[in-house]
């Protein structure tokens, strides 16, 4: 069986031949660029600091450093396509914390659906090439999703804002619908439900002014970085939430129907269009994009590879903003390749403008167990 480094050499050769220029950011990275990816990733970092106290870490992944390199170039305008291959370092209990990843990132392409399809096809073919197998013999299963479609769907359903926020955040984290839609009610001594019931449906401006006045009496202008107006506004939103809990039955059924959609692309699209029609909502722009992407993926002819679409699947990382995918060997649970679109990440890294971006990583150490 070929070693991980053999597979790595074949994968990177395949990716560079495809026109993705090799880019190798330093192993030692400023830690702060990863902090905004959340405490989950931060908990896995290998951190160190220099004598001045600046924090560094061993790179836990490639996407952020590669994007940072792209953004740091003097002449960083227009399109760029990069590949990479090397060790990444993440604390993984029970597994080696140093492992090799290969991958690709594509920046600046405005033909998003075509870029999405290209990244998927290339990642899949490179994973097969790394194993020295024809694609048809690699027997890969690809699950795709779309982080933006879920957001658009919930927007179109016209839910109270607080409910929409809870759903958009809770569903991708795998929080059950029940837990999201039935917030804990509590009967503590500081329960404001009586007051909220009075405010509910009352003159909003007057109620807002009252709460702000009460906070002003207490000497609160801004507390913990939140303004009195912000606090008052959300306090009043809770009144809406109480009645909003009843929004439910029919729209809840629609949400459940949406989340259950998991099928081959054509069937999934049919179900989604039917759902939009039944719900009386307009999702045509998002669904047309989805269809265009499906067609491009189909035209790539990924022999022996089963591609499906799952409406509830929005990617494991919260920076994904659109297309997402993950690939496994048939019947195995270990990830072979995964990726997606992250158009908002450039701005989080300090870019003045958004940069269309999509990429994928190949988990070379998971290819070994392939049948």
């Amino acid at each position: 069986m070929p070693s991980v480094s053999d597979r790595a050499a074949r994968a990177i050769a395949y990716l560079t031949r495809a026109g993705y220029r090799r880019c190798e950011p330093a192993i030692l990275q400023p830690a702060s660029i990863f902090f905004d990816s959340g405490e989950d990733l931060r908990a896995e970092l290998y951190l160190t600091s220099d004598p001045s106290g600046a924090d560094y870490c061993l790179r836990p992944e490639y996407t952020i450093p590669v994007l940072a390199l792209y953004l740091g170039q003097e002449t960083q305008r227009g399109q760029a396509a990069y590949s990479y291959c090397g060790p990444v370092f993440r604390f993984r209990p029970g597994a080696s914390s140093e492992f090799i990843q290969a991958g690709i990132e594509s920046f600046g392409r405005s033909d998003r659906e075509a870029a999405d399809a290209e990244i998927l096809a290339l990642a899949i073919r490179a994973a097969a090439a790394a194993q020295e197998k024809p694609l048809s013999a690699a027997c890969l299963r690809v699950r795709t999703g779309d982080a933006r479609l879920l957001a658009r769907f919930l927007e179109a359903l016209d839910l109270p804002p607080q409910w929409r926020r809870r759903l958009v955040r809770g569903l991708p984290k795998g929080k059950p619908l029940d837990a999201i839609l039935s917030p804990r009610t509590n009967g503590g001594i500081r329960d404001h439900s009586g007051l909220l019931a009075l405010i509910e449906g009352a003159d909003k401006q007057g109620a807002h002014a009252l709460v702000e006045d009460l906070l002003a009496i207490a000497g609160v202008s801004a507390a913990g970085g939140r303004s009195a107006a912000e606090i008052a506004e959300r306090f009043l939103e809770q009144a809406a939430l109480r009645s909003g809990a009843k929004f439910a039955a029919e729209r809840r059924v629609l949400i459940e129907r949406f989340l259950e959609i998991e099928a081959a692309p054509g069937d999934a699209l049919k179900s989604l269009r039917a759902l939009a029609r039944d719900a009386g909502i307009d999702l045509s722009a998002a669904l047309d994009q989805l269809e265009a992407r499906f067609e491009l993926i189909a035209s790539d002819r990924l022999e022996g590879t089963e591609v499906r679409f799952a409406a509830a699947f929005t990617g494991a990382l919260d920076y994904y903003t659109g297309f997402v995918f993950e690939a496994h060997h048939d019947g195995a649970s270990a990830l072979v390749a995964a990726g997606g679109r992250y158009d908002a990440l450039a701005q989080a890294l300090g870019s003045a403008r958004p940069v269309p971006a999509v990429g994928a990583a190949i988990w070379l150490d998971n290819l070994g167990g392939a049948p």
Partner: protein
Amino acid sequence: MSLVIAIPSKGRLQENAAAFFARAGLDIVQGRGARDYRGALDGMEDVEVAFLSAADIVAEVAAGRVHLGVTGEDLIREAIVDLPSKAELLAPLGFGQANVVVAVPRAWIDVKTMADLEDVAAAFRAKRGERMRVATKYVNLTRRFFAERHVSDYRIVESLGATEGAPAAGKAEIIVDITTTGATLAANGLKILDDGTILRSQANLVASLQAEWGAKVRERARIILSQIAAEEEARTTREVTAFLPNKSGGLLAEVKALFSAQLRIHSADGRLAFNCPKEKAPLLADWLIAKGAPHVCVAAQDYVFSAQNSLYEKLINRLPPFRA
């Protein structure tokens, strides 16, 4: 090789730990001076006491350089990443109680639960492009607790002292800290979330699973733990004795069901002795009199040793089988 027990080197934790061992008849004697960091148990061979800070005790337990330790559960759960393979909490000791809690500014009248916090944290990030900051020294406990409650839009700011002042100083929005009465939090304009108690902590007797547990060390541990268990059993129970010559057949089962009392002596002439939970002893006495006992004696005890030593068994079940 000696059995090494680490106990806190200063403050109330030290006094309480020393009192705990003394209560079990195990007097800690300090080395040559008060500043000596090694000691012993009076009259006990091959047992060494190490005086360390509560945090160092956790590190020494995790590394296997001490066998037993007394320290806070909060520190154990925070600092030992793979607790099940590193250490075993043998017994809570009834002192050093404190809760690790999530506290937010009192002015956040719209935030009462972790679900509220999750919503506010997300809105905070959406509006400012920055994550809400959480000041704490409990980095791991915080991450675990927030992840379980699906709160992800936050950033930890490590704080190694006066954490409760961080929001007022503008260093963080909210905190995760330890509190006993909540008074310090209230004085700093903070309130605890209704479901924001991460851990109800107290001092624990903890055993290292990483240390070398040779035959002699195990034997020392057995003696010490059985003495501790015997004292605890004695402190929480009373001996109830009575003379009941004409007792009915189901009486013993009834006593066990009604009073959770254990029968200890049952002689042919009708003498009975029970070990009964302290608070139920008077009720049991009254009940025995109603059944025909002329007198019932309830007595406090110094030690109740049992063939079954629950503390030692808890330890030995977690250690690899001993091979000489």
